[in-house]
């Protein structure tokens, strides 16, 4: 590429330089570029040329302004025919000269704008990616998610029972396709080292619903939903590349999933996306018993609307089916109804509202930045009053002055925007590192970047801010200039009253916005603290966990499963530093959820509401290892094995809900409705938090895994170990213990419980951190704004203060004069802000925990903090005013 300059340089120079200079200058730069590239890396050479280019533009613009100045000022009106673009370039040049003269002003204004625009751009890129970008499916707006929701549950929840799914699919008319999805992990063996992979079991309409086709091979056929036909698998594009060398001949190959052979029938396109990022997709096999099962709610269901069918029509269609089913099966389907929602809503879940709060918070910061820069500009406008007055007197039209000042604002905003984008780039990188693990399941998170769309938004934000902060100063300055006396000092005490009023109003606005942000941040902080104080119902410290999933092919027999885990637990307990160990199917805070309906003996027909609880299979030491107390009855013992009467424990939440005012111990329940096999409740244990610290404990039923109810679930277990040593000391031993028992058995990562709990609160922590950071920015900017306005006020009134002091005013009185002004602005802002904060707090109330949105302590605390900041900001100007020497002031 000899003889050339970095792309874009020519275009920039062509805009700024006189045309006859462009070519020779470009040639010189090309020489320089070539010589730099022989000694520097390419990017540095290009950066150097760009810096040169900008310096050149600045020098030429200044030269132009210098020559323009040599013309008489009357030229403002003498050249009415000057084209708009020429006038604009000249305004720009004059603006550049004005700005370059006031470095301190420039630095403060630029930093303020860059912070505001940068933070807004970074947060916007995040929110946009998650909430507004189209999902990576064709015609994604036609995709919906279907739930079985209970009337009392407000949130989107409610997995679907297999029989209901089958009935929906057959009965609905609003959809072109519908698919049930079950998320799980499968062990892949036979290709390199054994590995646990995220998997999806889906019914055959899945890819049709997503409107995707495999890159290679085919999708599932309808008959592959039947047991016996279902051993086929679709590979993710990533797995196909990493484990099969991107070999198209992979179709027809046989792989082992949980030790069962599956035939590869296709490779998914790289655009395929699902929150759990599955690597293998297999058919969801439904046998005859499953097709009758309405009590176990296990599936997510998605569907694609027929063209022309609205969300409301689809909902009506599903409501009709739901009504029919609840009539037909009052016990199982009487208490919930099908609900249709956009699929994004289910992917985003409760993260959506917190993102909107973040966007609001950063928007406040941007507004405060604008108000701050506006007050700075107004102070400057007043200082230039004389210059503007002369121009007006010489015949420059009013709009010409406004245009000049607006052009300067635009220039300032553009520079601020450029710095802001640099900040935003850094902010996005930081944000990506700080994202909680759980956010990886959000759509679009992988695509967060400063692309053209975001940069366009930043540009619009820049233009918008320049109008926001430029308009008021431009008009007040032009207006005041008309009235300005042209005497040397401009000493009248009454000029600029209008500007002062606007400036004070801006500071009041800043104070109000800061108060609103601070209250929100404080409420979130108090919630977070309350949340961390919540006991999970067990002792999470020094508790390690590890997931083991035994393959069905090798461990089809229940006795083998029990034998394996007994041997494993024995080995683990004998390890040094281990105080206790147990196993359970569903670990608290692991993000898993399964519910099953059950019947209580003797209540047939009495209770129209089928009861649901989280069933957990466990070893007898699980609860004692966690430290969950036995409240009444007896614990499970190793003697509760196969062949003895089936027993269970329930938690207090289940006892309260299903046996209110009665003793549940001794009652019998069953999970199978057709041919009841009764399970006796022998004890009640304490509640533990299952999903999140801020959710109430769900009813839970604990079943000994040695007894065969739900035996198939006992293959996938989490090992829980109480230890007196660190994870690093015990972790490798746990993995070795599994390997020693079964060399081929893959294990999940060893994790400790505080880490799992930390992950569950990580989204809140990030939200809190960001909102707090914005609140701090807001209060610093507001303090700076207050300081600037008061400082300017004192400078402006030095003469008046001098007279007052000469006439006998004491220092104290002068001090009070300034502080009163500060106090008035602060109190007005505080009043407005507190009222606004009440409204904001209502908006964020969904994110609060254990604290009222109107908590008086928070509001009082914020008020005190703000008054302290205001005092601090007012201190220096007030002191300066009280030190005014009357003689100097009057002489000056």
């Amino acid at each position: 590429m000899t003889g050339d300059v970095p792309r874009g340089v020519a275009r920039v120079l062509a805009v700024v330089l006189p045309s006859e200079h462009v070519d020779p200058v470009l040639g010189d730069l090309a020489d320089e570029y070539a010589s730099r590239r022989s000694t520097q890396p390419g990017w540095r050479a290009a950066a150097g040329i760009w810096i040169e280019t900008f310096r050149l533009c600045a020098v030429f613009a200044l030269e132009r302004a210098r020559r323009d100045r040599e013309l008489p000022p009357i030229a403002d009106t003498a050249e009415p025919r000057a084209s708009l673009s020429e006038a604009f370039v000249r305004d720009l040049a004059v603006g550049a000269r004005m700005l370059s003269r006031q470095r301190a002003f420039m630095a403060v204004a630029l930093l303020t704008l860059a912070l505001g625009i940068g933070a807004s751009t970074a947060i916007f890129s995040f929110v946009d990616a998650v909430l507004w970008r189209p999902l990576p499916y064709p015609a994604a707006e036609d995709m919906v998610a279907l739930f079985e929701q209970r009337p009392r549950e407000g949130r989107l929840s409610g997995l679907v029972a297999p029989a209901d799914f089958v009935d929906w699919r057959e009965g609905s008319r609003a959809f072109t396709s519908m698919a049930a999805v079950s998320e799980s992990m499968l062990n892949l063996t036979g290709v390199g080292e054994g590995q646990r992979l995220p998997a999806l079991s889906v019914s055959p309409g899945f890819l049709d619903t997503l409107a995707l086709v495999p890159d290679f091979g085919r999708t599932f056929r309808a008959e592959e939903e039947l047991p016996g036909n279902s051993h086929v698998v679709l590979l993710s594009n990533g797995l196909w590349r990493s484990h099969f060398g991107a070999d198209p001949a992979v179709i027809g190959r046989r792989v082992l999933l949980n030790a069962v052979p599956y035939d590869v029938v296709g490779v998914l396109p790289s655009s395929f996306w699902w929150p759990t990022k599955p690597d293998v997709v297999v058919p969801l096999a439904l046998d005859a018993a499953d097709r009758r099962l309405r009590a176990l709610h296990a599936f997510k269901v998605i569907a694609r609307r027929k063209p022309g069918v609205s969300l409301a029509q689809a909902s009506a269609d599903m409501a009709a089916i739901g009504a029919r089913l609840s009539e037909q099966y009052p016990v199982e389907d009487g208490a919930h109804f099908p609900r249709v929602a956009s699929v994004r809503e289910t992917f985003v879940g409760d993260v959506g509202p917190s993102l909107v709060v973040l966007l609001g918070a950063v928007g406040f910061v941007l507004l405060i930045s604008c108000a701050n820069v506006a007050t700075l500009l107004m102070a400057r406008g007043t200082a230039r009053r004389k210059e503007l007055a002369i121009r007006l007197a010489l015949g420059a039209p009013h709009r010409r002055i406004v245009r000049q000042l607006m052009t300067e604002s635009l220039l300032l905003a553009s520079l601020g925007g450029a710095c802001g984008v640099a900040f935003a780039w850094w902010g996005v990188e930081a944000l990506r590192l700080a994202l909680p693990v759980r956010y990886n399941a959000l759509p679009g998170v992988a695509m967060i970047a400063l692309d053209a769309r975001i940069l366009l938004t930043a540009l619009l934000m820049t233009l918008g801010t320049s109008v926001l902060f430029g308009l008021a100063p431009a008009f007040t300055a032009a207006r005041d200039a008309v009235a300005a006396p042209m005497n040397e000092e401009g000493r009248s005490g009454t000029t600029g009253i209008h500007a002062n009023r606007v400036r004070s109003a801006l500071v009041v606005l800043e104070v109000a916005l800061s108060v609103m942000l601070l209250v929100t941040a404080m409420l979130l902080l108090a919630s977070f603290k309350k949340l961390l104080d919540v006991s999970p119902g067990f002792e999470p410290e020094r508790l390690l966990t590890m997931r083991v999933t035994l393959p069905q092919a090798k461990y089809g027999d229940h006795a083998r499963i029990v034998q394996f885990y007994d041997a494993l637990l024995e080995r683990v307990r004998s390890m040094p530093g281990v105080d206790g160990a147990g196993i359970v199917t569903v670990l608290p805070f692991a993000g898993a959820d399964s519910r099953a309906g059950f019947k209580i003996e003797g209540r047939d027909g009495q209770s129209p509401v089928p009861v649901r609880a989280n069933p957990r299979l466990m070893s007898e030491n699980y609860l004692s290892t966690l430290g969950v107390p036995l409240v009444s009855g007896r614990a499970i013992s190793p003697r509760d094995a196969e062949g003895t009467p089936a027993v269970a424990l329930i938690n207090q939440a289940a006892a309260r809900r299903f046996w209110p005012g009665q003793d549940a111990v001794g009652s019998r329940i069953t999970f199978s409705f057709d041919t009841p096999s009764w399970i006796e409740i022998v004890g009640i244990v304490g509640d533990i938090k299952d999903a999140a610290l801020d959710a109430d404990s769900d009813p839970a039923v604990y079943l000994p895994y040695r007894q065969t109810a739900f035996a198939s679930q006992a293959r996938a277990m989490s090992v829980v170990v109480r230890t007196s040593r660190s994870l690093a000391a015990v972790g490798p031993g746990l993995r070795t213990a599994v390997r020693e028992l079964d060399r081929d058995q893959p294990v999940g990562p060893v994790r400790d419980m505080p880490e799992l709990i930390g992950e569950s609160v990580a989204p809140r922590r990030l939200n809190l951190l960001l909102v707090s950071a914005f609140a701090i920015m807001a209060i610093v900017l507001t303090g700076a704004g207050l300081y600037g306005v008061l400082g300017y006020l004192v400078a402006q009134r030095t003469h008046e203060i001098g007279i007052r002091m000469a006439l006998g005013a004491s220092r104290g009185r002068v001090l009070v004069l300034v502080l009163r002004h500060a106090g008035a602005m602060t109190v007005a802002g505080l009043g407005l802000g507190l009222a606004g904060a009440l409204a904001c707090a209502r908006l964020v109330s969904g994110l609060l925990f254990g604290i009222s949105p109107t908590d008086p302590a928070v509001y009082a605390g914020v008020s005190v903090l703000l008054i302290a900041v205001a005092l601090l900001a007012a201190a220096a100007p007030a002191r300066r005013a009280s030190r005014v020497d009357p003689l100097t002031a009057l002489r000056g």
Partner: protein
Amino acid sequence: MTESLALGEFEHVVLLAVLRLGDAAYAVAVRDEIARHTGRRVSRGSVYVTLDRLETKGCLRSRLADPTPERGGRAKRYYALRPRAIEALKENRRTLAAMWRGLDEQLGRV
């Protein structure tokens, strides 16, 4: 007409550099020449605008050389002094020399 030209200090320096360079006076060479003799590293932009200004004042004339492929087919702009500039330089030197005469002693004292 010998209307005296007001030359700034930097304009003066640039004119002398052009004079020294003879046929080879284009912006980058001028800048290097100034650096070589004075040790001053001046900005590229100020050399361009000063050359341009001097041309407007009638001190310099410029011509575009043939484009070369190394520079992406772009020509160099070469400058040469007009008689007016030579007059102005001579005049300046005379004025300064006259004003300097006999000042060595004072300068030593200050």
